[in-house]
């Protein structure tokens, strides 16, 4: 204690106190902040689980998309969007939307796959649109990865980055990270063009091409994709590399320089 009190006027004492205070506030925040909401969502999904198709739609979707899916000022018409669009939007948790904004983000899904299928069947009955793809259409196994890579760089990389890490669009919109996206959902996204994404119809990008692209994304950007050079720093290219070189590269070298300079041969004091 005495040691501590002797140092309380040390020039760095204020800094240390500040660090402790920051750590304490941050710690308290993370300890108490988020928990509640996720549970509530699960509860509400449980209560909705029994309903089917139209009923589900009336409860969960109609406030924005209209009671007949004809659309309102808050949401577009769903006539003719097809089952694939529903499966993508609801299956990735984007719909039902939490709040209006530049773009509706991905979040834990609210409906079970059975409910999603019921919703999809209902929306598909409003007008014909792309149907849900079958597994052999998007299964990455056996697809041509190299060709998928070329197609990806031609059609997708300008928004999603070289390996699908995602990127920024105008006014707060963005192309999301494709890292942990289900192959089925990647396929559906290309097919239906959700939100700010253009749709790649089978005429523009045939079924086989889509499957090759899915295979490429899964090869270079998934949990078990290889990174022969080591940790990939997010895969964001030179900006991330430059920041790393400055903070950790030069930072480490300056620390080493300080260390070397502090350990010097002592000159004889005369």
């Amino acid at each position, binding site marked *: 204690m005495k040691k501590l009190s002797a140092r*309380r006027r040390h020039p760095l004492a204020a800094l240390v106190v500040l660090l402790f205070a920051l750590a304490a506030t941050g710690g308290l925040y993370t300890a108490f902040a988020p928990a509640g909401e996720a549970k509530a969502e699960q509860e509400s999904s449980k209560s909705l689980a029994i309903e089917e198709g139209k009923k589900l739609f009336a409860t969960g979707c109609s406030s924005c998309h209209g009671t007949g899916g004809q659309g309102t000022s808050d949401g577009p018409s769903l006539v003719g969007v097809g089952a694939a669009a529903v499966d993508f939007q609801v299956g990735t948790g984007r719909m039902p939307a939490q709040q209006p904004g530049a773009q509706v983000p991905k979040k834990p899904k609210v409906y079970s796959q059975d409910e999603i299928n019921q919703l999809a069947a209902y929306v598909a009955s409003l007008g014909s649109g792309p149907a849900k793809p079958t597994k052999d259409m998007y299964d990455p196994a056996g697809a041509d990865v190299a*060709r998928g890579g070329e197609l990806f760089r031609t059609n997708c990389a300008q928004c999603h980055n*070289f390996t699908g890490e995602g990127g920024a669009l*105008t006014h707060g919109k963005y192309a999301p990270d494709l890292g942990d996206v289900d192959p089925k959902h990647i396929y559906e996204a290309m097919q239906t063009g959700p939100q700010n994404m253009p749709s790649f119809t089978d005429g523009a990008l045939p079924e086989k091409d889509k499957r090759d692209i899915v295979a490429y994304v899964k090869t270079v950007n998934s949990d078990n994709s290889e990174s022969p050079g080591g940790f*990939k720093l997010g895969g964001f290219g*030179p900006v991330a590399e430059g920041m790393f070189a400055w903070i950790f590269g030069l930072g480490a070298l300056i620390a*080493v320089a300080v260390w070397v300079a502090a350990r010097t041969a002592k000159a004889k004091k005369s």
Partner: protein
Amino acid sequence: MSTATETRGSAAAEGKKKAPAGERVADWADGRLGIYSLAKANMRKIFPDHWSFMLGEVALYSFIIIILTGVYLTLFFHPSMNEVEYHGPYTPMQGVQMSEAFKSTLDISFDVRGGLLVRQIHHWAALIFLAAMFVHMMRVFFTGAFRKPREINWVFGFLLFVLGMFTGFTGYSLPDDLLSGTGVRFMEGAVLSVPIVGTYLSMFLFGGEFPGDDFVARFYSIHILVLPGIMLGLLVAHLILVFYHKHTQFAGPGRKNSNVVGMPLLPVYMAKAGGFFFLVFGVIAAIAALFTINPIWVLGPYRPDQVSTNAQPDWYMGFSEGLVRVMPGWEVDFLGHTLVLGVAIPLMILFPLVLVAIAVYPFIEAWVTGDKREHHIADRPRNAPTRTAFGAAWISWYFVCLVGGGNDLWATHFHLSINAITWFVRIAFFVLPVLVFWVTRRICLGLQRKDREKVLHGRETGTIKRLPHGEFVEIHEPLSQEQLHTLTAHDQYEPVEIGPLKDENGVERKVSRGQKLRAKLSKGYYGESGQIPKPTREEYHELESGHH
């Protein structure tokens, strides 16, 4: 060396006894090269000790590492743009059409023993080399180590930094991957934006329409021969001048403008610098072994019809990217020529302006002070508030441009609108440096006041004493003589006076506009608002006698 001459003398005195082999070799060499006298003059050269004096060493060593690894890479790289098909071990590239340059880079990464590690060391070392030069330059700037006699060496250092940028850029372009090809396309845009001759220059550079099939080979000779050659020459000149001028040192007891207090080159600095080289190599090698850089195998070969987001240059070119990204896309028609101001202004005017602004500062300061003396004592940044404020403002300027260059990543990672960032950068480009200048100067002045206070009243100990009559006082501990010297060793300039505009006969003196400007600047630098007068001996003694 004195020891060497002594043994020679004693050996001669003992007569026929043969000298040891090492000594005979040294004698043989000295008779032909005259190295004894050279070594005698330089081996005991003294260098001062401070961690910030080692930043230049980091740059030097990373440059050596780059050359060593670069030589290895040239053994396997093919600077050719011939089209080939890939059939190597990396499956996601199987059967893809690519240039030989790209293929050989893939081969270096996957087939050549140690190739990927060496490539990554080369690239990481390049990023660190430029960063080290940057901070080294800032150290020299903020300590005023650019003052006479070191102005030329400052310019050499600056040229090394700029050449390093372009060496880095040409190297980044060599693998002919999608990222670097986009960078070269960007550069082509800059060349094209040159009024009147832009198209001609572009055709000349690329041997026809972009991309053509020449630029990799051309960039290759620029990258491995022309620019590094010039840099090596400049580097040697830079080091010779450091030797010739001797190193600056911070003020302290026993340290004068006319001496250098520190350790001799041999053995102390040879050992320290040698060890430090391996530490730098070790840190860079460890980073290269753990973290991937420029993974060209996922970037794919360059094709002009493809592009990816996150296409940015390496950090040292990032500010030019930022300048272009935030510049409005202005285009005007001038006598039938299209002037692409949206590219020409940022890249032909602002890009050099940002760099030159910091390079010419030492000459501006020398003009303002009119100081012709030599300076070997490094300034503490606070004791030159205007200079320090200028430097900080320049860094903020540079940083704002970097933010613009990475605007997409700022947008995605902080959930911001990219348009908002662009507007922020546009405004901050003009406003932030002014703000930073003002704030930094205030901070420096505050620190000067604090130093003054410390010198006159000692250090506040935090110990409260109660006097017999009940009064509480805090005990101030007087500073030691060494501390007092260190805090008051700096010179303070007087502002330049033009003098009366009319002489005693009432005739107007001619005062040039330049002189007036100089007087005005000088007043800003060294007038009442520009510095806090350091405590004088009289003030110190007066207070001291009052205290005790």
